[in-house]
């Protein structure tokens, strides 16, 4: 785990490289290009950058239109506005129309911090996950941003990529494998498995260390793609470990936890615990204070692990 970097910083840089390589890439932003870092692309390719002003609904419609002329538009704004304000535009125009638009939203999650609840997106994964045709990716670190964006541009169709504001520890490497829809096992263990996404991957690795020192060996799996969910890996892990925890910087309603629960409830009943924001809005505070208050730290994962292990011991895992 060397160094920290924000996923939005990585995004700004990758976008410029992509712009050099692929003349079809165009970028659309809604008056937050400094914060989303698309300003780097704008500086290099002013003729391929379009600022629609503070108008997220228009942003999505314009992006859809651009895609229909054969371009590959990347639409960026904050996660709350990309998925909340413009939900109907994303649903009815982009997803229903299966338009080749890549939505890359920054400021996902509670670590937005001081701006407060209005800007903390804790439901965007849920909103994007329910849309047919839409793929949902949450990179865990800067390296994964590059891979995710390149992979998204390579395929046809709408993709939602969620990035964060604050620096996060590096948990993957430049050459680690990335494939949309394939989760990566970062650590082995058979007592329990932690399925984590985004910044919670590094928290999960920390939790696994703590658990290991207490004699519990847990696998840590980076579920960078929430949709399509890697069913095979999730089910295989569930059968092997008999106990799962999901960890996400998002509401436990509708996010990764829900996606995993949907799968397990029909395919394989094992003990499951969810670490995430518990159906409440956030507030102002530092990212660290908020992670603690809203129960999404390594410590919370450790606690949940004990609860789930207890269930595993006393209950019965039923898989078919």
């Amino acid at each position, binding site marked *: 785990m060397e160094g920290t970097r924000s996923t939005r910083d990585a995004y700004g840089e990758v976008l410029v490289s992509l712009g050099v390589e692929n003349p079809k890439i165009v970028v659309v*932003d809604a*008056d*937050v*290009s*400094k*914060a989303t870092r698309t*300003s780097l692309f704008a500086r290099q390719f002013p003729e391929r950058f379009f*600022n*629609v*002003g*503070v*108008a997220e*609904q*228009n942003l999505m419609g314009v992006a859809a239109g651009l895609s229909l002329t054969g371009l590959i538009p990347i639409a960026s704004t904050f996660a*709350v*506005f990309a998925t*909340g*304000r413009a939900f109907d535009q994303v649903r009815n125009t982009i997803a229903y129309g299966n338009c080749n638009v890549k939505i890359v939203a920054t400021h996902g999650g509670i670590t937005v911090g*001081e*701006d*407060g*609840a*209005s*800007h903390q997106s804790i439901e965007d994964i849920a909103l994007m996950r329910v849309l047919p045709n839409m793929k949902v990716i949450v990179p865990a670190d800067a390296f994964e941003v590059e891979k995710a964006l390149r992979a998204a541009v390579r395929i046809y169709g709408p993709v939602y990529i969620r990035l964060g504001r604050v620096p996060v520890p590096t948990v993957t490497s430049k050459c680690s494998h990335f494939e949309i829809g394939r989760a990566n096992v970062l650590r082995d263990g058979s007592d329990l498995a932690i399925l984590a996404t985004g910044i919670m991957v590094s928290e999960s690795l920390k939790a696994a260390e703590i658990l290991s020192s207490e004699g519990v060996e847990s696998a840590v799996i980076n579920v960078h793609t929430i949709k399509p969910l890697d069913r095979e890996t999730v089910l295989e892990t569930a059968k092997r470990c008999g106990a799962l925890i999901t960890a996400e910087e998002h509401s436990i309603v509708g996010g990764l936890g829900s996606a995993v629960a949907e799968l397990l409830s029909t395919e394989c009943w094992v003990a499951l615990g969810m670490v995430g924001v518990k159906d409440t809005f956030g*507030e*102002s*505070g*530092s990212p660290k*204070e*908020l992670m603690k*208050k809203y129960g999404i730290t390594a410590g919370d994962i450790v606690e949940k692990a004990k609860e789930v292990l207890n269930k595993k011991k006393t209950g019965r895992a039923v898989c078919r």
Partner: protein
Amino acid sequence: MDEVRKKELTEMAKKLRIDILEMLCEAGSGHSGGSLSMADVFSYLYFSGILNVDPKNPDKKDRDRVVLSKGHACPVWYAALAEKGYFDKSHLKKLRKYGSILQGHPDMRKTPGVDMTTGSLGQGLSCAVGMAIGAKLDNLGCKIFAIVGDGECNEGQIWEAAMAAAHYKLDNLIAIVDKNGLQIDGFTKDVMNTEPLAEKWRAFGWEVIEIDGHNFDQIDSAIGRAIETKGKPVCIIAHTTKGKGVYFMENVCDWHGKAPSKEEKEKALASLCGEGAE
């Protein structure tokens, strides 16, 4: 307006600006430019006697309502509410901090005197329309003030609300557009041109009054005229300077979403007292 009152309001605006700088510096983040540009308007609203409000009874039913549709500028509102006595001034030091009643964007469930939760741009004016309709239905006889950003006018919902306000002839609704010419990514004319802005509001059925938003005589007469206007809502386009009062912040885009460091704050306070202007 008589000179004594004007002097009082000018002094209060200066106080608000000092509060803004102090609280933003302490918070370490937040929006300087768009708070400073509205200090004179807020001084007038809360300290000219025009608002029927009671800081000891912030929820009284027939109060005049204020909606800060450009919610990011809440430091100016918090300063005015504190100076008015809604809560102790010590709270200002806790702006944006964990557990504070003063959130990064206005939260009506946490802050006395805040009539509407905002922060997602473009939504406040619609709520003000609803309040204005409700006030009429209930014969409350109160006025609704909505403070809107010029960048915020990019949002389609502003115009949906504008259409509805005229349709329902909401003469108890007064929108004040902070026309400081800047948004996050640059000058409004370059990012997304909203001109001709006054004509747009007029075309939507509003009475439009253009003023210098730092001139108390003009603010006073505009709001007086707005209150007199019958049969339609009034939009006061306040021409302002973003960062007003602090020479190195004035009309500088970078100071939109930035808080001053300790040294910058000292320089800024000196600037408010007329020092260091270049």
